[in-house]
């Protein structure tokens, strides 16, 4: 007997939280938790962790589209049942990890995975490109300036060799967010793919009453571009808003608050590329991603401009950076002016901050390198 609409509260269960994680620990994990001594990455996508008990756990990391069906998940379960006593996990970057408790069990597992064609690419470890943290895009969200899953697929197809090898100077963490809300760590990624709008919101006067709390919409605008206004809708005056377009920087926060202020547009929307962010405290403190390409068009289904821009940056970095140097550490060492030259990215004033805290980014020194930007 399931849910009974007649008596919704009867027998209702709530506030029970998630399942207790220990129920889901593979035996080898439960036995060695807190006892791990060191790890090694014997081959791309395979981790070995050594415990003080002498135990070893071998983890095989598999790339995952993240947007997956229950069919797919059942297939994953089949694999885990066959090789991992029915356990698996997902990583913080949406890869799947199959764990086995001895070296012998690794190859059979790899063979099974291989037998599914492209479905279970092994990799994403060490100094390479791992899965792209991304968001909803046109598959589910109402505020995107681009798609998520499609762009990710196109980029990962192109960078695939970096997923399955560990040949980069350090890990390159790529993230995609389909709008400025930046669901994910786009603001702190080696390479960030960001959907942006470029047209101010339209105002749907005929809809605004009812669907929109006007004061909240006005308060939502960081630049104060939205002001209260009045207009006529079928004969009678209604309260609405007007937008000072020249003060709009297209953050979309108004639309989040007010469905009558849509700003998405096929021509206006597109993708900005930011680089040089990092999260870890390793060596240098965490860094924000920096905007280096202000806009690329939305060109479904494979976004060639975005794909080649990202690839160019990865390859330039791969060729030029020192071992252990993250993209941002590299750019800071060579200087951002050299970054633009080496990556052959034309510099535009869009990369010059003119928002808050902007002055901190101006170059208040005679120290600079000559690059092809100086004619």
């Amino acid at each position, binding site marked *: 007997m*399931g*849910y009974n609409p007649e008596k919704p509260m009867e027998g*209702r*269960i*709530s*506030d*029970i*939280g*998630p*399942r*207790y*994680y220990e129920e*889901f*620990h593979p035996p080898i994990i439960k036995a060695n938790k*807190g006892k*791990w001594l060191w790890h090694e*990455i014997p081959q791309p996508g395979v981790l070995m962790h050594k415990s003080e008990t002498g135990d070893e756990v071998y*983890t095989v990391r598999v790339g995952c*589209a*993240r*947007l*997956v*069906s229950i*069919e*797919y998940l059942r297939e994953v*379960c089949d694999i885990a049942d066959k090789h991992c006593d029915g*356990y698996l*996990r*997902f990583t*913080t970057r*949406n890869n799947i990890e199959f764990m086995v408790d001895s070296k012998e069990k690794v190859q059979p597992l790899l063979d099974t995975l291989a037998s599914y064609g492209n*479905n279970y*690419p092994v990799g994403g470890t*060490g*100094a390479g490109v791992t899965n792209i943290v991304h968001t909803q895009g*046109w*598959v*589910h969200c109402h*505020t995107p300036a681009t*798609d998520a899953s499609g762009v990710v*697929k196109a980029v*990962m*197809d192109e960078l*695939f060799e970096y997923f399955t090898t560990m*040949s980069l100077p350090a890990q390159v963490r790529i993230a995609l967010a389909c709008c*400025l809300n930046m*669901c*994910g760590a786009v*603001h702190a990624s080696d390479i960030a793919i960001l959907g942006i709008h470029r047209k101010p919101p339209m105002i749907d006067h005929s809809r605004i009453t009812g669907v929109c709390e006007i004061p909240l919409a006005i*308060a939502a605008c*960081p630049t104060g571009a939205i002001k209260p206004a009045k207009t006529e809708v079928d004969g009678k005056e209604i309260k609405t808003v007007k937008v000072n377009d020249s003060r709009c920087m297209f953050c979309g926060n108004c639309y989040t608050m007010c*469905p009558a202020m849509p700003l998405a*547009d096929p021509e206006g929307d597109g993708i900005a590329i930011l680089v040089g962010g990092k999260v*870890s*405290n390793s060596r*240098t403190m*965490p860094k*924000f991603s920096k905007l280096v390409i202000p806009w690329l068009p*939305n060109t*479904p289904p494979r976004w060639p401009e975005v794909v080649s821009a990202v690839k160019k940056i990865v390859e330039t970095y791969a060729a030029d950076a020192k071992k252990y140097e993250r993209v941002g550490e590299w750019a800071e060492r060579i200087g951002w002016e050299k970054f633009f030259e080496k990556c052959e990215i034309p510099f535009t004033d869009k990369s010059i901050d003119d928002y808050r805290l902007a002055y901190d980014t101006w170059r208040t020194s005679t120290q600079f390198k000559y690059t092809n930007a100086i004619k």
Partner: protein
Amino acid sequence: MAKHETPLLDELESGPWPSFVSDIKRQAESKPECWDILGVLELSYEDRITHWKHGGIVGVFGYGGGVVGRYVDLPKRFPGVEHFHTMRVNQPSSKYYTTKFLRQLCDLWEKHGSGMTNMHGSTGDIILLGCRTEELEPMFWDLTHELNQDLGGSGSNLRTPANCLGQSRCEWACYDTEEACYHLTMQYQDELHRPAFPYKFKFKFSGCPNDCVAAIARSDVAVIGTWRDDIQIDQAAVKEYIAGNYPGNGGAHSGRDWGKFDIQKEVIDLCPTECMWMEDGELKIDNSECTRCMHCINVMPRALRPGKDKGATICVGAKAPILDGAQFATMIVPFMKVDKANDFEELIDFIEKIWDWWMVEGKNRERCGETMQRFGLPEFLRIMGLEPLPQHIKEPRSNPYVFWKEEEVPGGWERDVVEFRKKHAA
């Protein structure tokens, strides 16, 4: 067979990376509504614009979060996704699963939903993508009754906490991230399900400063493992690295020939505080200069380990750019014991102190980090009853604009201009 032509999406079926398009097509065979997912998406690929509308308020009785409403703007054309709400299912710590659980979840989602998911959402939840309004309650009922599993957060709630896998499979975890994440999630079920905050609030738990759950970039309270004694050194292992018998960085760079491991170049010279050196064959560390950046440990996992006196550094106030630009979390508590033993008491007191203040002072849709900015760090520390430390800042202020308080100034601020004029004729 296909309900819609999808020439554009079909181009995403080739290439080495797993294709979500092929996956959805396969799923569509047993769940025809999935054709409409592909149909809308194909249309968006033609139009280069989304076809989803604002969600409005949908959810399950008694909860203010856990469901994100969503409707398509062409319901006639795509009835299968007319309603397409998201259910956020609170993932277990570290996202380990039994196939039993996953299969049960799939069965429920087959019964009540579209059959499509995100494993996982950026915050950490299991995202069940696409549910009709009338199926929300039945799905929730089955989840709770059959799977003993609750929803996660959305709206102006505590959001679903997340952690790096920590001690479960990592040698560097300085506290039990899984237990901390679970304990605090259970502790705050009410805050997680019922919006009582000015805006969303997020916890994330990383076991060490590598921060594998990106806590410092994405959480209002980031609990990041650390230690306050000396890095543990195994000098024998150091020699093995120097001899080239152990792979540097655990073999993370084995895809390219970077030459023989060079402890000077790869470790000592890259130490940001220049606090390491070799002394007659031994690696020395001046731990009083170390900032626990992890680099040396990362590079020589078999020789170096975090210290023994472990705990966490608590950073507060990270967020995405809306409104004034992104913020990383700011270091507020240098070292805190984070321990099941005392039920994470210290951490809980700390969090509740923030909430007590933010729930009163925070404006609508103002993240805690933004409220901190509005009040200023000195004031925030005062409110939290914490002593200001040089460790709280990267560098001291360069402007001289100190807001002195009247009680700090001898004689106070009341002055008599007439008296003043007696000594200083105008």
